[in-house]
């Protein structure tokens, strides 16, 4: 039986791990290579690096982090942030990434996803959908780490991403991110029903029940979380044991 995945996400800035509350007020939470290695040994099903300032700064820092991580970690590694060209993707895959997460470039031009998935395969194309609720039952896509409104409907965009070669959707609720009050289950339910590719739930995890709800109620194939793991509130093992006790299939 296929297992639901637990994915710790490391937000990386200038080669260091940070995690913001609603993307501001960043705190330093350590070395990404070291952390990734701890998560790998602790039973994480995948590891995600999000280069949060890659849009403006030097890309080589993250390549270096990926390079070093690939020497130590033998679980899938997803890298996102600032990916604009197929060369960016190839550089990351060559450094040791297994998947790339595309956000702004996909929103700007969905053909980029199409072209890249043809070249590298849908299996490594994660399209990151950052959505914010604008009215009842309606969510809009935001880009640039949640700073820019696009007017694009999140549900329509997710379907379009799938049709153009996304292998997976990383769905972040901008309303919930950093709040620790749980994932946006309403949004999650709608998106997981709208697409047939796996959806990773992101944004809002504050306790283990939130992860359970995202899988059980929201239909997520995987759950991504940052703070609850980084600051040692829960280990990956505790998380999986909890989910297992609630009959969620996990790899233990």
């Amino acid at each position, binding site marked *: *039986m*296929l*297992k*639901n*995945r637990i994915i710790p996400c490391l937000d990386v800035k200038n080669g260091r791990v940070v995690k913001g509350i609603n993307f501001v007020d960043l705190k330093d939470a350590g070395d990404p290579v070291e952390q990734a290695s701890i998560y*790998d040994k602790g039973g994480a*099903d995948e590891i995600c690096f999000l280069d949060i300032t890659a849009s403006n700064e030097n890309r080589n820092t993250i390549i270096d982090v990926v*390079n070093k991580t*690939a*020497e130590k970690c*033998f*679980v*899938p*590694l997803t890298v996102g942030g600032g990916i604009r060209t197929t060369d960016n993707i190839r550089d990351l*895959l*060559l*450094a*040791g*990434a*297994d998947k790339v997460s595309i956000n702004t470039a996909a929103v700007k031009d969905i053909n980029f996803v199409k072209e890249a998935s*043809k*070249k*590298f*395969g*849908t*299996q*490594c194309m994660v399209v990151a959908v950052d959505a914010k609720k604008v009215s009842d039952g309606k969510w809009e896509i935001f880009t640039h780490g949640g700073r820019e409104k696009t007017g694009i409907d999140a549900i329509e965009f997710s379907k379009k991403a799938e049709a153009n070669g996304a*292998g*997976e959707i990383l769905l972040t609720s901008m309303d919930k991110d950093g709040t620790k009050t749980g994932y946006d289950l309403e949004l999650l339910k709608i998106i997981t029903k709208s697409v*047939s*590719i*796996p959806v990773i739930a992101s944004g809002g995890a504050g306790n283990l029940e939130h992860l359970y709800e995202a899988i059980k109620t929201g239909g997520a*194939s*995987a759950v991504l979380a940052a703070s609850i793991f980084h600051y040692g509130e829960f280990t990956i093992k505790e998380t999986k044991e909890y989910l297992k006790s609630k009959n969620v299939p996990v*790899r233990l």
Partner: protein
Amino acid sequence: MLLTVVDYGVGNLRSIAKSIEKANSDNNLNYSVKVSSDVNDVKKSDKIVLPGQGSFKACREGINNISGLNNELNESVLNKNKPIFGICAGMQLFATTGYEEKKTEGLNWIPGKVVKLELGESDLKVPHMGWNEIKIENSSSVFKNLADNNHAYFIHSYEFIPKDKKIVSLSTNYGKDVVAAVSFKNIYGAQFHPEKSQNTGIKILTNFLNL
């Protein structure tokens, strides 16, 4: 001893090389692992790893685009009997024909076809992505010392249907039994990613190095 990871433009090559290097150093073996698109390296190698990402058609084109590579792979594998390990679409290429995007000839080393993962009425997601349990089907010198509940990491939307079921070493259950690994003479392949399957994957790669 030289092991070449064939670089024909696709795949998470460094991940693969690093996992083989780990299998090599953990077991005090003496392989040097080279990621290369040079046909001469394939020629000189003792063992070959054929990665694969992207569509069957794209992988086939990737091989065709390197002059002499197809011939040297045939020579190394079929005439010199060098052990080869195909990963994901790399394994699928061993088949006679693939049907992704359009009908494409494979390397035709293992009679069979590669078709879209057909799951009938189920609401299971495609691609089949994530950790799934492997089940031992037939004994193999590479897919050995494993247990039925070991997990491996899969990402694929197409499946290999070999003509002869006896060459299936491992299967996995995703709505039905899906081929997870094959062994045929000196030809080995996994639908999952051993380089991303932690200890289970390293064990399999170690077995391959130990052949």
